[in-house]
């Protein structure tokens, strides 16, 4: 920047008498881009003499609101210290701007919000958690009521959005679910192969892969993938609709948002997730079967033969049976967090994150509870 483009301030030499008028010459561009250096200088500047100050603004080439504010602030600060300040030679338009600035009282508040203590923090967090839990419970209650009502009156069920949701959450998830569970089957067979070979129990690879995939891994993996894929989408969609007041619009039209937005998603996922799980079973076992042939020389027909004995119908059904519960958890948590969005775009991001974390957590918790229950029931 040249000298023309930055703001300058030159103080005339302090004269012999302490009460004499000190001249202050302002020059250059007093603009938002030009005042940065001068501002730092003014912070530490000591004003000579005791008497009046005469500012000369005739050399100011440009003045904008930021520059005018700095000038105004400097002059007012000097006045507060009991000195008389005059401004001369300013161009008429600049002088009008300076007056405009002076007519606005600006008192920026520097009130940082008081920080809560540790105890208060714990209390607030706990309270928020409890409120959230009761909100979730009432949301589950409301959704269940509406679900039951629409089961009693099946004509009220909206099939079109259900089918659409089945396509986006189910059909379109086939590639990723298939690939990941196939790889999981490969990994399990690969890890097990060494141990089994040591005991000459090669054929039990079918038990290992079949049972672990069908009972545990494919329902869990599928649910986690769907929670990340669709649960987050539910939260983001409903959250954005909330910000743009579409949810309020639905209410005023007389269509319950739960009925239109939550129910189709939940029903679609309850239908699609078991199907996806079945598909994941097949892909996982396929992966294990390939690995078994290449690592343990267990041929396909021997593997399949053994698989029929190893995986009982009840094992298969316990795996598939968990899927609808996981589906309900994912859909409810995703939609609930969507409705919790308020105000800002930030909030959409936050609630989407919460929805994924919560639904994965709850799915794994539910899976653990299922294991305990099945153990009790000896299934």
């Amino acid at each position, binding site marked *: 920047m040249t000298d023309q*483009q930055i703001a300058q301030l030159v103080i005339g030499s302090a004269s012999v008498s302490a009460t004499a008028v000190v001249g202050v010459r302002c020059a250059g*561009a007093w*603009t*938002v*881009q030009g*005042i*940065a250096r001068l*501002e*730092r200088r003014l*912070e530490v500047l000591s004003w000579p003499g005791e008497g009046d100050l005469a500012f000369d603004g005739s050399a100011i080439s*440009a003045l*904008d*609101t*930021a520059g005018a*504010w*700095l000038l105004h*602030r400097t002059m007012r600060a000097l006045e507060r210290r009991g000195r008389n300040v005059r401004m001369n030679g300013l161009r008429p*338009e600049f002088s*009008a*701007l300076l007056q*405009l*600035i002076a007519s*606005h*009282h*600006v*008192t*920026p*508040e*520097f009130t940082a919000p008081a920080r809560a203590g540790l105890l208060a923090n714990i209390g607030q967090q706990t309270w928020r958690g409890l409120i959230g839990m009761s909100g979730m419970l009432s949301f589950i209650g409301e959704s269940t009521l509406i679900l039951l009502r629409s089961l009693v009156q099946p004509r009220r069920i909206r099939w079109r959005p259900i089918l659409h949701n089945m396509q986006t959450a189910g059909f379109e998830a086939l590639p990723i679910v298939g690939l990941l569970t196939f790889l999981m089957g490969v990994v399990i067979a690969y890890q097990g192969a060494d141990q089994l070979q040591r005991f000459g129990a090669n054929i039990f690879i079918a038990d290992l892969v079949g049972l672990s995939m069908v009972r545990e891994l494919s329902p869990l993996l599928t649910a986690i993938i769907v929670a990340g894929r669709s649960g987050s989408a539910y939260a983001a969609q409903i959250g954005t609709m909330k*910000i743009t007041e579409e949810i309020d619009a639905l209410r005023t039209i007389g269509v319950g948002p739960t009925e239109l937005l939550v129910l189709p998603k939940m029903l679609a996922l309850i239908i699609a997730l078991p199907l996806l799980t079945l598909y994941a079973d097949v892909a996982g076992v396929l992966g294990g079967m390939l690995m078994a042939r290449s690592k343990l020389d267990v041929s396909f027909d021997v593997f399949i033969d053994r698989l029929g004995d190893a995986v009982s119908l009840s094992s298969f059904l316990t795996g598939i049976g968990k899927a609808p519960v996981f589906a309900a958890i994912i859909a409810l948590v995703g939609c609930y967090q969507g409705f919790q969005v*308020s*105000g*800002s*775009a*930030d909030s959409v991001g936050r609630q989407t994150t919460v929805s994924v974390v919560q639904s994965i957590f709850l799915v794994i918790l539910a899976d653990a509870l299922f294991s305990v229950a099945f153990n009790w029931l000896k299934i």
Partner: protein
Amino acid sequence: MEPIQDTAAVIDIRDLNTRFGNNVVHDNVSLTVQPGEIFALVGGSGCGKSTLLRTIILLLQPVSGSIRVFGREVVGLNDEQALPLRRRWGVMFERGALFSALTVTENVSMVLREHTKLSARLIDEVAALKIALTGLPVDAGSKYPNELSGGMRKRAALARAIALDPELLFLDEPTAGLDPLSASGIDELVRSLRDALGLTIMMVTHDLDLLWRSADRVAVLGEGHILGVGTMTELSSSDHPIIREYFYGPRGRAAREQAWKRK
């Protein structure tokens, strides 16, 4: 910042063509905006007013033609090349487009923080000044955009648009969605900002009252062409059917009578 020569137009559009697919939006549009004037672009819904505005501020690329802002060609500039120009103009979007995660003060000061080297204290003061200049109450600064009414949000958006003391201000529908009282507040605000800060203002609007009260010159856009340019008085005596329809509809007449009475 070199001073603008009075002879050179601030915005100079020549033979601009814009298309969305096969839909021709602008067909050889030419316009000039002079320094210090309040220039308004009007026309029916969907006639491409906002598209023209978005093309000038480099959010859309035209098919052909030239747009010169401050004497520099802007068509074909990339973001980096456009930055020096973008610092010299401010834009107020139709729905405010305030950052919802930031308070009003933060919305304004964020621009200053990004583009200047001022101290945090001065930035806060300048931001508070800008908010006061747009007529917002002092306590509005610490509020979030979703806690503000429509009119206050427009003012806050205006405060952000003038944060860097631009030489050129673009306003997209500054009064849309406001009650008459807030709208007339905006009319006066636009004029007083122009007079106080020496801005050039280009706005897109539907608001006939705003046109009568604030605009120096008006261009009517329709069917992809500029149908007429001039002061409101000149345009209201035009005999182009679309312009007549625009100004002599029931609302147009009422706004004109209002304007006469005031004179």
